[in-house]
Structure formats: C-alpha cells, structure tokens
C-alpha cells in the first residue's frame, strides 16, 4: 500500500488526461475562490486602508531592505513554524496539518503529472511521502477536531456538531481519510470498496478546493500578509496605537518611568508566563 502509486493503478479505469484536467480545475477553483472571497469580504480593501492608516501614524519610514528582512522573519516565524499560535498543542496540530497537506498535495500533483501510468515506474519515495502526508494531515486534523477546537474544549459543544466554519477542516479530514482508505482497498484488491472510497475521496477534495469561498481555505494567503503588516507597524513605530515594548534595564526608560526602578530594581528579573501558565479552560 505505502509504496504503490494509487493514481498509476487508477489509470486503468480513468485516463491520466482526465486526472490531470481535474487537478488543473481544482487549482483554478482555488484561485477563483480566493479572488471571490477577497471581493466578497473586502479583505484586500480593508488591508490596504489599514496599511495606509498605519503609515500615517508611522514615526519612521521602513525601507525596502528592512521590509525584506521582515518578510524573511514572517516566513521563518509565522509561515514555516506557525509562530503566531500561543497554544503549543494548537501549534503542533497546525504544523502537522499544514506540512501533511503540502506533502499530500505536492506528491499527488507530481504522481499525476509525472508518473500517471504503471509504465512510467514511480520512485518509491513519492507514494511513501503521499501516505505520510495523508497520515500527518489526519493526525493533526483529528487531534484538532476532537480535542483542541475551542468550542469543543471550552464551550462544551459536542464533537459531532457541524457549522459552516467546519467546512474546511471536515473536507480536509475526509479527503485524507478517504484517500488513505481508497489506497488500502485498492492495494488489497477490494474492487467495489475501492470505487466507493475513491468516489468519496473525489467528493471531499472537490468540496475542499471548490468551497474556498465559504471555508477558511484562503487563510493560507491572507494570514502571511496580515503577519507581515503587523510586523511593519511594529518597525515603523505606529504599532496600531499600542504602547511601546520597553527594555526595563534601559536607563532612559527608568528615568521616564521611575516606578520601574523603585519597585522592581535596576535589573528586573524574568517574571514567568503569569496567567498563561495554564491554557484557557475555565469556562
């Protein structure tokens, strides 16, 4: 199961051209959905208006070089390691889901376009990565669904309650789950079951990529942009009107705010995480 390319075996019943056409259609649906989402929510308009407002309040201008450094920081911290999440379990689950999804989608595209038939022998690493990706996606996703979702862990709602907000996670989970079951039934030679789970796999992935307008799929595009803007406001001093992030050992800060050295000393110690010693779960 783990070393066989499920799409090569599928090429006996569905031609590779149809599979490739389906992948292209899904890419177009994601692009179209994201653009429609942006128009509908006016998120781009809000984003640029907010950026203009922040620029007006800026205390210094941020150059292109500094913006590039900020972009790299966003890539390293917010994008690649999900650094925005304060909740460690949530961050781990998001990393599993994100890298699982990327592996799964990338290997699917490579196998469908590069090795669509059994004649073009697929390198063993591709199907292995495809299965690992689906498993990571399923583990991270189910962990989130059953234990981490805030309205499950805190608002006391049941795990089987569905809302429109769940469209993204549910379609992700069903895509990974039905994909894995389809691969298993196909490699075990269970013809009928295999067809059923393949149909479910396709239905789930169509819902995932076609439902961008109604789901939170587009967050993977606008979240990095928002994280970048947030860092720029810190760099240019506008800080969204938030107070400064002071260095308490700086003599200038101590002179401006004499309560700090008087009550905390010249070199205040690290006070620890405070209320974040435990996650929010008391409601």
């Amino acid at each position: 199961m783990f070393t066989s390319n499920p799409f090569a075996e599928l090429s006996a019943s569905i031609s590779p051209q149809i599979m490739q056409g389906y992948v292209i259609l899904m890419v177009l649906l994601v692009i179209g959905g994201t653009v429609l989402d942006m128009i509908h929510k006016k998120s781009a308009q809000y984003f640029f208006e907010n950026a203009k407002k922040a620029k007006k309040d800026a205390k210094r201008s941020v150059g292109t070089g500094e913006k590039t450094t900020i972009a790299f920081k966003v890539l390293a911290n917010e994008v690649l390691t999900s650094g925005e999440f304060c909740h460690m379990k949530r961050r781990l689950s998001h990393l599993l889901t994100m890298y699982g999804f990327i592996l799964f989608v990338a290997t699917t595209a490579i196998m469908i376009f590069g090795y669509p038939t059994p004649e073009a022998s697929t390198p063993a690493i591709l199907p292995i990565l495809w299965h690992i990706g689906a498993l990571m996606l399923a583990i991270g996703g189910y962990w989130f669904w059953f234990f981490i979702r805030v309205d499950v862990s805190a608002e006391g709602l049941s795990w089987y309650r569905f809302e429109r907000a769940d469209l993204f996670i549910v379609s992700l989970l069903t895509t990974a789950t039905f994909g894995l079951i389809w691969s298993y039934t196909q490699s075990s030679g269970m013809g009928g079951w295999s067809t059923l789970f393949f149909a479910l796999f396709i239905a789930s992935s169509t819902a995932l990529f076609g439902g961008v307008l109604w789901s939170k799929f587009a967050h993977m595009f606008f979240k990095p942009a928002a994280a970048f803007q947030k860092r720029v406001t810190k760099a240019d001093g506008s800080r969204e009107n938030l107070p400064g992030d002071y260095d308490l050992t700086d003599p200038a800060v101590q002179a401006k705010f004499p309560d700090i050295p008087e009550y905390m000393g010249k070199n205040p110690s690290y006070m620890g995480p405070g209320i974040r010693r435990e996650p929010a779960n008391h409601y």
Partner: protein
Amino acid sequence: MPTFVYMTRCDGCGQCVDICPSDIMHIDKTLRRAYNIEPNMCWECYSCVKACPHQAIDVRGYADFAPLGHSVRVLRDEEKGTIAWRIKFRNGKKDMELLAPITTKPWGKFIPKLADEAAPSKEMRDSELLFNEPKYVRMDEGGLHTLESNGLKMKAGVYY
C-alpha cells in the same frame, strides 16, 4: 463603551472567555472568533483586553478623559511584570504613554501557604477578627492605625 474584537487579530484561543468576570465574551459558533455577546452588560474592566495575547480586543474609552476619536490601548507584559498604557488624542498631538509594575516577584512563586499556618486557638475563634488578620487593622480603639504606630516599616514589593 463595551469591548469589541478585531476579527483579523483574534485566533479564538479563549483567554478572554476564560477571564471575563461577566461571562459575556464568547466564541462565535460560525466564525470561531471571540465576541461580546451582551455589550450592555460590559463594565469595561479591561480584563479581556489585557489577557488577549494578540491585542485583538479594544475598548473605546469615555469622552471625559479623552475626546472622541481617540485611542486608549493597553499592553500587559507578564514576563516583564509590567503594564503599559497609551492614550492618543484624535489630533495626534497628545500621545501619552504610561508604564507601571504589576508584580515585583515571579508569578506564583510566593503564594502564602495558609495551610501551613497553626490552627486558630479558641480565643482567636471567638474574636471578631478574621483568620490571621493583623491587629492593627482594628478600628475599635484610639485613632487611626499607621505602620509607624504599630512599629512596622514599608517594604518594597507586592504581596499576593
């Protein structure tokens, strides 16, 4: 004015729901982001504003201390043990910042161990004072009690 949430900042972590003394900060069932379910009942205690790890909650302050169109924002940094406020007027000419300590010792390390205290004697039980209440808070005799009159000195530090 009651609290409101910047949806683009909120990640639905639930810290505000956890801390709200009026239990009016909830997670929206469709968007899975926090919102104030009953603005009329919000008394602007700022607990959620300070607890939010992303500074996603804001309150419009009253016009008696800052004219309309102003901004009053707070940053509670627990790791440094400080709280910072910034009040900015609409015209941008008044832009004030304040910084004050909220603790002088690491959180949770110096909690009084009341369980280790000796059990109250019969005399203490019959007394009108609360358990371990120092005598100098009594107001039933003589003048106002002060630290000096009780032979005490002000110590640096916040006790909790």
